[in-house]
């Protein structure tokens, strides 16, 4: 579900809700009488006692159109939030909690991921003491510069990130304060079609 293209859509819905619905005067008077005769809603005394004056009671009265609009708004917000969350999950599909990252400190093949996951933990590390922001871009995150930021490790001062990558050959680069740089300690990719070189990481199958 996508958000309407016109950003004024909320204003339009509000204006439509504010528009007075034509009702015959006799019906209006009868409706008001019914409302006046209706018993007040009861409130549980124990709840009132428990919260006392600290609890403020909020009451919002909305009509059928208002309910519909509120429901629409909630669905739209929910869909939007889901979309954003799914986008982040997709972009960071390889990220993994810290305890698994610790397993990746060996310079050798890192195994131990559940076979069904078909992924291996790979730890990327960069020493860039003067950098204020470092990110990882590559074929595994659609070259999205905001998907995989590195964080500075307090103990070493290095920028690190651990990803769970699917088996295969992945091309990547670091983005250091906006500048793209290859990883000089890793094999270099020769296909620098766009000006600056990239690096290659090979990930084995967890089953091999």
């Amino acid at each position, binding site marked *: 579900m996508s958000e309407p293209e016109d950003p004024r859509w909320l204003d339009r819905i509000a204006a439509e809700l504010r528009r007075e619905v034509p009702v015959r005067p006799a019906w209006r008077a009868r409706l008001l009488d019914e409302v006046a005769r209706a018993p007040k809603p009861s409130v549980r005394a124990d709840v009132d006692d428990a919260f006392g004056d600290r609890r403020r009671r909020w009451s919002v009265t909305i009509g059928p159109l208002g309910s519909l609009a509120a429901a629409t708004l909630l669905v739209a917000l929910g869909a939007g939030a889901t979309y954003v969350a799914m986008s982040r999950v997709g972009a960071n*599909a390889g990220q993994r909690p810290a305890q698994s990252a610790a397993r990746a400190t060996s310079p*050798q093949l890192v195994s131990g991921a559940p076979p069904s996951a078909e992924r291996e933990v790979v730890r990327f590390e960069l020493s860039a003491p003067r950098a204020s922001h470092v990110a990882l871009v590559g074929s595994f995150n659609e*070259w999205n510069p905001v998907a995989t930021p590195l964080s500075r490790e307090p103990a070493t001062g290095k920028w690190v990130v651990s990803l769970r990558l699917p088996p295969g050959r992945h091309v990547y680069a670091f983005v250091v304060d906006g500048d793209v740089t290859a990883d000089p300690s890793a094999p270099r990719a*020769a296909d620098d*079609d766009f000006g600056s070189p990239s690096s290659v990481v090979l990930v084995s*199958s967890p089953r091999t």
Partner: protein
Amino acid sequence: MSVRLLTLAVAFAASAGAARAQEVDRTLPSQLSAPTRATLDRLIDSARVAGLPVDPLYSKVREGVFRSAEEPRVIAAVQRLTRDLGDARAALGDSAGAEEITAGANALRAGLHPADLSRLRESRARRSDHPLTVALVVLADLATRGVPPAMAAASLNELVARNVSDGSLLSFRQNVERDLVGGRSPASALDARTRAMIDDERRRP
């Protein structure tokens, strides 16, 4: 700047035809114009019909968008990669997997000839089911770092023919790189490290 990749998964030992769990977004970025997307769609479809791996092509497009490349440059990069993938597959044989083909294309881009790739394939006679991906990655890396491609190819042929493991090939690459950084000439570094690696393999039980 000191950069270090701590973990390099070294043994890319999946069989050549094994399915790959790559999760590449096979859509074209919306930032590109409609005519460019249409052109890229045609190119990628042609590659797919030809049986070439298409994930590297989608990744190349996204890399171009990330690097703010002009659209004609993105198209040219995809055309060139498609051609290299086709040449690599022809050199490595129909049984080559997607990763081998992609690594082979990268090696061609680094200055290797298709004949170098074919010779490498023949060199692994004793391990005919073992993918050449790591060897090809090392080969491309050495050529990119200034080692003459013909020399690099000859060294890798020697090592692959002697059944050197993928992990050892990656160590070999690191050692050559260290020598180059230390000021040694590419030819000298390559020769010394190749001999050392062969000696190590001989001593191994």
